[in-house]
Structure formats: structure tokens, C-alpha cells
């Protein structure tokens, strides 16, 4: 079935564009980059149509590590969960690649951008296709690297490179947790293959499984931006908008959700870990939504929205509704990618303006952008029968069955989600234009992907019945249908939209006066609860200063340099002392000779004796 073609085609695109792209024309770069991803998508379709997904199809390429009893192979596997992820990654990825042709048309480093994007696709597909934890980790690390490269794409801007560093370093913390989990798995199960580990999972002790589950969750928190490791995602908006759409909305950040869903045999036997995941998920969802309420940069609003929606997915996973979590992953990929690409279109129309306060009235100037973004907005707000409604509803119902307070918090968050998304929509597209640029509609190469994503956001919910598809994969869950709950969540969404309408369209000054009346709370929320500053003071500064004082000055300068220089100065000192023998005085030379001869005579006597 040649599964390896799926990731290798983008890798080939990366190599060709990366090495030769400087000399290619834009058309050539496009052809290679887009072509590789589109062919990969076509190959995914061909593979999935040809396979019977009832059981896992594995392809083994070579033995990677053979160490004692531990054997780790380079293996790809496809089952139902993989199928969904493959379609999302390659499908949405292709659309974003096409969009980037238009968005990046006037940027420098054109070929470099597409090379990095292709490299990212390679690593992400490796992650998704992996049949054991180590190959997954290769993809995991690789997407982190590409995220760093792409966030810091405008490498001459310090805030971009700082953001890239931040993303990579915070991810590293998560990766450390993931590595510990992998070590524990090797130690307890003797293998890293998924089918091997999961077969033994029921036999292991709950304490072990809980520890592994918690450590996997740490890894997921880093990659999928949950509390406390979410701080990198808002800063990651420094990268180009297609990057935000692809990596930080649709694919990379979902790797954590994918990984925890894949590990469901471990998690279902560790209720404490699942509980922790659910709590962190719902807390992050609520927390990020509150911050998103007050942001003025359109990309930041959607960044916090991503954090919040990822929290929903983890809530689903934590409550045992794995298929609901994956369902939301898919629908979120559609409408969040569309929201980001749409805001990219708006930014492109305004020649770089990102502040909502300087937008307005754009629905006349950029009608297509407005229409498509509205599709995404109603989807994310959970308005039936669009995509977001089905997936969010599935999660909330499972949450209610698990612990009602999670349901109420999730519903409140849903209301806030609707509010801030429509706040952004109303501020950008309604009212009078408050800026100084000349807005123009985006070229078709950017609009067609928007249109396709809009269709998916609207219809994807009932077109792709994910829970039914995955019902044979995940353990069955008894969740009673409760129309009342559904009604409450729909109402929350609609109320959010209505409130946004009132505050931003009907009575434009109301938002500002409300903000003034709760000045302290507003400042707190607007400054993201000062979390970055707290981290900076509590963690970053002590580490940097400690490293500077202890490791640099103490170890490197004093000990290592001191040893190296010390050897030199010792040699020179000894030489300086020995130099005094050369006094130039013949008499002292004679005395030394006499001394030597007496020593030799004594030496002979003591060594063996004269005669």
C-alpha cells in the first residue's frame, strides 16, 4: 500500500524547494510545494478507499533499534483514527498551501516558507501514521521544530524570534514529560508498539498507568497548549497567518489530543489521570475564553479561542468521550482554519493591520471574506445544524454525564465563545471603517480555499459522522440523550451572539463604558492575567540568573577555564622555578654536578650495592 509515500512526498518537496528553491521561479516553487501535498492527499484517499479499516493495517520498513529485548521498528499503521487524522491533515493542509500562494506573494523568503511548510507536513504525517510511541515522538519533535522555524519566519523581527524560542522551550517542557512517559512504558511493558502496549495495559497496576497517563498529559499540555503550558500559543501569532491556521489551529496543536486518544487503553484504566485531563481541559477552556473576550488583535482573539477549543477536546477525552473529542478536532480544524485564513484575508486587505479597533465596515469591501468567515463564526458558536454544534454538543453531554459542574462551565464557555467570535466579526465587518488603508478583496487563489472550508464548516458536521465511524474503535460509552441539555447549550450560543450584537452594533459605546466600569477586572483580563509576567519572574528569571551566576561564572569560567588556564600557568610557573638553575655561575653548576654524583653513588648503593 506504500504508506510511506504519504509523508515522503512533502519531504521531497521540502528537499527540492529547500536546496534549489532559491533559483526557482515562483511558479515552480508553487508547483513542487502544492503538488507534493495534493498528491499526498490523493494518495491518502486511494489508500483509505482500498483498505478495510476494520482492523489495523501495518507496514514495517526496518528495525530501528534493537537493544537486548527491546525492539523498535520504523512502522506505519492505519486504522480508523488514523484515517480521520490523515484526511484532516492532508485535506486542510492542501487548502492552506493553496491559500499561501496568494498570502505570501509579496513576502520575502517565498521558497523557504513553502519548504518549511512541507517539512511540517512530513513530520505531522509521520506523527499520525506512527505505529509506536517512538516514531510518534519523532513526528512530535519534528512538528515542534517546524513550528519554531515558521513562527520565527520573519527572523529579522525580534518579537518573532522570541516567540519562536518561547514556543520551542515551552514545548520542550511538555516533551520532557512525554519522554518520561515513554521511559516508563518501556520499563513496564517492554515495548513501545501501540498494539503491544495496549494489550498489556489492562494487566499493569493502576499507579503505574496513572503516572504514565499524567506524564502523557504533560506532553499533551505542552503541544496542545493547555494550562500551564499554553503561553506559547498567543505569542505564536507572530508568524505568518497561514502558519497560524495550519499549525496552531488545525494540525500541530491537535497532536496532543490525538496522542491521548490513541492511548485510551492506558487512560481508561487510570481514572485519576482522566479526571485530571478533564479538569485541565475545562479549566483551560474557560480561562482562555475569558482572556479572548478583551483582546484587540484579531489573531490573538482566535489564538485564545484555539486554546479554549482545545480545552473542549481534552474535556471530551477526559470524560471518556474519545470520539467526541476527535469529532471536535475535525470540525475545529475546519472552522478555526477558516477563521484564521479569513483574518489573514482581512489583514491582507488592510495591508497588515491587525487591530480590531482600526477595522470596521469591511463587509462591503470584502464580501467573500465576510461571507465565509460568517460561516465559520456560526459554526464555532454552536448554532445547529452547522459543524461545531454537533461536536461541541457531544462533548457537553458526555461532560454532564461525568460531572455536572463541568457541563455548566463548558456551557458558559460556549456562550463566551460565541460572544467573542461575534465581537470580532462585528468589530471587523460592521459599522464604519475606522482605519486609514484602502481595503480590497483578496485574489481568488485565497478565496477558493476559504469557500471550501466554509462549506465544510457548514456541512461537515452531518456529512462526516465521526462518532459512528469511530464507535468500533473506542470503547462504547453509555450516554443518555438529553434534549434539555442540548437546548441549554444552543441558547447559550445564541445569547452570546445577541449580546455581541447589542454591545457592538446596536449600541457601539456600551462595550467601552462597561470596560471602564470594571476597570480592574478588565485590566487583569486584557493583560492575560499577567501569566507571562508571573512565569517570567518565578521561573525564567531565576533560571537565567542562576545559570549565569552558577553555571557560567562558577563552572565554565572558574572551573573549566580555570583548569585549562591553570595547567598553562602551572607549567609556566614550574618553568619559572627551574629557570633559576641557570644562574650563569659556574660554581653553582659545579655544586649541582657534585650533588648529582653523590646522589648517584648513594643510589647505586641502595639499589644493588657496589659489588
Amino acid at each position, binding site marked *: 500500500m506504500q504508506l510511506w509515500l504519504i509523508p515522503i512526498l512533502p519531504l521531497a518537496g521540502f528537499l527540492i524547494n529547500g536546496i534549489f528553491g532559491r533559483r526557482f521561479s515562483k511558479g515552480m516553487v508553487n508547483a513542487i510545494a502544492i503538488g507534493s501535498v495534493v498528491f499526498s492527499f490523493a494518495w491518502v484517499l486511494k489508500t483509505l478507499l482500498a483498505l478495510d479499516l476494520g482492523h489495523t493495517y501495518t507496514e514495517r520498513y526496518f528495525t530501528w533499534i534493537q537493544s537486548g529485548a527491546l525492539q523498535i521498528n520504523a512502522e506505519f499503521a492505519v486504522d480508523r483514527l488514523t484515517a480521520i487524522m490523515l484526511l484532516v491533515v492532508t485535506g486542510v493542509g492542501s487548502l492552506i498551501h493553496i491559500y499561501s500562494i496568494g498570502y505570501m506573494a509579496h513576502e520575502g523568503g517565498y521558497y523557504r516558507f513553502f519548504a518549511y511548510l512541507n517539512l511540517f507536513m512530513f513530520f505531522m504525517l509521520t506523527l499520525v501514521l506512527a505505529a509506536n510511541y517512538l516514531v510518534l515522538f519523532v513526528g512530535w519533535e519534528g512538528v515542534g521544530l517546524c513550528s519554531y522555524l515558521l513562527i520565527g519566519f520573519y527572523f529579522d523581527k525580534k518579537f518573532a524570534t522570541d516567540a519562536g524560542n518561547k514556543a520551542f522551550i515551552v514545548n520542550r517542557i511538555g516533551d520532557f514529560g512525554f519522554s518520561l512517559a515513554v521511559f516508563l512504558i518501556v520499563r513496564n511493558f517492554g515495548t513501545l508498539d501501540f498494539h503491544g502496549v495496549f494489550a498489556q495495559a489492562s494487566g499493569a497496576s493502576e499507579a503505574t498507568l496513572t503516572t504514565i497517563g499524567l506524564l502523557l498529559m504533560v506532553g499533551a499540555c505542552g503541544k496542545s497548549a493547555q494550562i500551564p503550558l499554553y503561553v506559547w500559543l498567543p505569542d505564536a501569532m507572530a508568524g505568518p497567518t497561514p502558519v497560524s491556521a495550519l499549525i496552531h489551529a488545525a494540525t500541530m496543536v491537535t497532536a496532543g489530543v490525538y496522542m491521548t486518544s490513541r492511548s485510551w487503553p492506558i487512560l481508561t484504566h487510570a481514572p485519576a489521570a482522566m479526571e485530571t485531563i478533564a479538569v485541565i481541559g475545562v479549566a483551560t477552556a474557560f480561562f482562555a475564553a475569558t482572556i479572548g473576550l478583551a483582546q484587540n488583535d484579531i489573531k490573538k482573539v482566535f489564538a485564545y479561542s484555539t486554546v479554549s477549543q482545545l480545552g473542549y477536546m481534552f474535556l471530551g477525552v477526559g470524560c471518556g468521550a474519545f470520539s467526541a473529542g476527535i469529532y471536535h478536532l475535525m470540525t475545529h480544524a475546519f472552522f478555526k482554519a477558516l477563521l484564521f485564513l479569513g483574518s489573514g484575508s482581512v489583514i491582507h486587505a488592510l495591508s497588515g493591520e491587525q487591530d480590531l479597533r482600526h477595522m470596521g465596515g469591511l463587509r462591503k469591501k470584502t464580501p467573500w471574506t465576510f461571507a465565509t468567515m460568517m460561516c465559520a463564526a456560526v459554526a464555532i458558536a454552536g448554532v445547529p445544524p452547522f459543524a461545531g454544534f454537533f461536536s461541541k454538543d457531544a462533548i457537553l453531554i458526555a461532560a454532564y454525564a461525568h460531572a455536572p459542574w463541568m457541563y455548566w462551565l463548558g456551557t458558559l464557555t460556549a456562550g463566551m465563545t460565541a460572544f467573542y467570535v461575534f465581537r470580532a466579526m462585528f468589530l471587523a465587518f460592521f459599522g464604519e471603517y475606522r482605519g486609514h488603508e484602502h481595503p480590497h478583496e483578496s485574489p481568488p487563489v485565497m478565496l477558493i480555499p476559504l469557500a471550501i472550508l466554509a462549506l465544510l464548516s457548514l456541512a461537515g458536521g452531518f456529512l462526516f459522522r465521526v462518532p459512528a465511524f469511530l464507535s468500533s474503535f473506542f470503547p462504547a460509552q453509555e450516554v443518555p440523550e438529553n434534549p434539555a441539555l442540548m437546548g441549554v447549550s444552543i441558547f447559550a450560543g445564541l445569547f452570546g451572539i445577541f449580546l455581541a450584537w447589542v454591545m457592538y452594533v446596536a449600541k457601539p459605546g456600551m462595550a467601552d463604558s462597561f470596560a471602564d466600569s470594571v476597570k480592574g477586572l478588565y485590566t487583569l483580563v486584557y493583560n492575560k492575567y499577567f501569566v507571562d509576567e508571573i512565569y517570567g519572574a518565578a521561573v525564567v528569571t531565576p533560571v537565567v540568573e542562576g545559570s549565569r551566576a552558577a553555571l557560567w561564572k562558577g563552572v565554565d569560567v572558574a572551573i573549566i577555564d580555570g583548569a585549562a588556564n591553570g595547567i598553562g600557568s602551572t607549567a609556566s610557573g614550574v618553568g619559572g622555578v627551574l629557570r633559576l638553575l641557570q*644562574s650563569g*655561575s659556574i*660554581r*653553582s653548576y*659545579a*655544586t*649541582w654536578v*657534585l*650533588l648529582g*654524583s*653523590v646522589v648517584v*653513588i*648513594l643510589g647505586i*648503593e641502595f639499589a644493588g650495592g*657496589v*659489588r
Partner: protein
Amino acid sequence: MDVILFLAFALFALACAINVVVQKHPIASAISLIGVMGSLAVIYLLLGGEFIAAAQVIVYAGAIMVLFVFVIMLLNAGAETGSARSLTAQSLGAPLLVGLLCILSYFVQRLFPHEFATHFGEFTGGGPKEVGEALFTTYLLPFEATSILILIAIVGAIVLARKEID
């Protein structure tokens, strides 16, 4: 008889040797050295070294010491002035010398017990005939080598001392 001769000349040699080292004027040291050479020649005779005794007087006392006296005369060397300046020599020299003497005497006493005695006339193999035979057969190579050495020394001495004349 051997004993008296030996003791007399040995003591004379020691006295002259000490005089060499102690005297301030080089010419007095040179004369004392000639005295040492002479008494050593008698001691060689006691040991049966006739040829060596003769060579000692002719070469050492007759040629080398004369050379020394000439040089002292050329250089107009006066009495020595000033005090010692080398710290190493001062601090280490005396203990080392005493130590050296003690060690050597100790070894000599240990290795050559009292019974091993000498008699005048016991060894007759030191005459010119025996020396000549050994010199031109067994020790031919060193003989030739030392003759070249003397040639080099002559040339060297001429070269070194020549420049002053120009």
C-alpha cells in the same frame, strides 16, 4: 719501609693539595701543585708503575705545569680579591664535599679489607716494555684517537690564542 715512604709522601701530597686550594696567589698554587705531582710520582713507583711515574713527572710536572706558570705570567694574575658570591656553592658545597669524602672512604673501607696489602716490587708489569706492548696492541685505537685529539688541541689552542696577536 713501604709504610714510611708512603706515609711521608702521602702526607706531603695532602699538604700540597690543601695548599693549592688555600693559597691566594695563583703562582703559589702552581708550585704546590708541582709538589703534589712529584709525590704522586713516588707513590706510583711504590705501586710498581715505573713508566707512569716517569710520564707523570715529564708530562704533568714538566709540561702542563710549566704551561700553567706561563699563562699566569702572561695574564699577570694577581692575588685573588673579593668574597664568595654563589649561594648554592656556599650553602651546599661544604656539606656535599664532606659527605662525598665520607661516602667514598666508607666504600673503600668496606670493599678493601685490611688484609689486602701491597708490597713494593710485587707488581712488575708496569715497566715501559709492558706498557708499550699493551699500548700498540690492545690499546691501539685509543692511542691513535688520542694522538688526533692532541693535534686538535694544538690547532684549537693556536686558533683561540691567535687573535690576541693580530
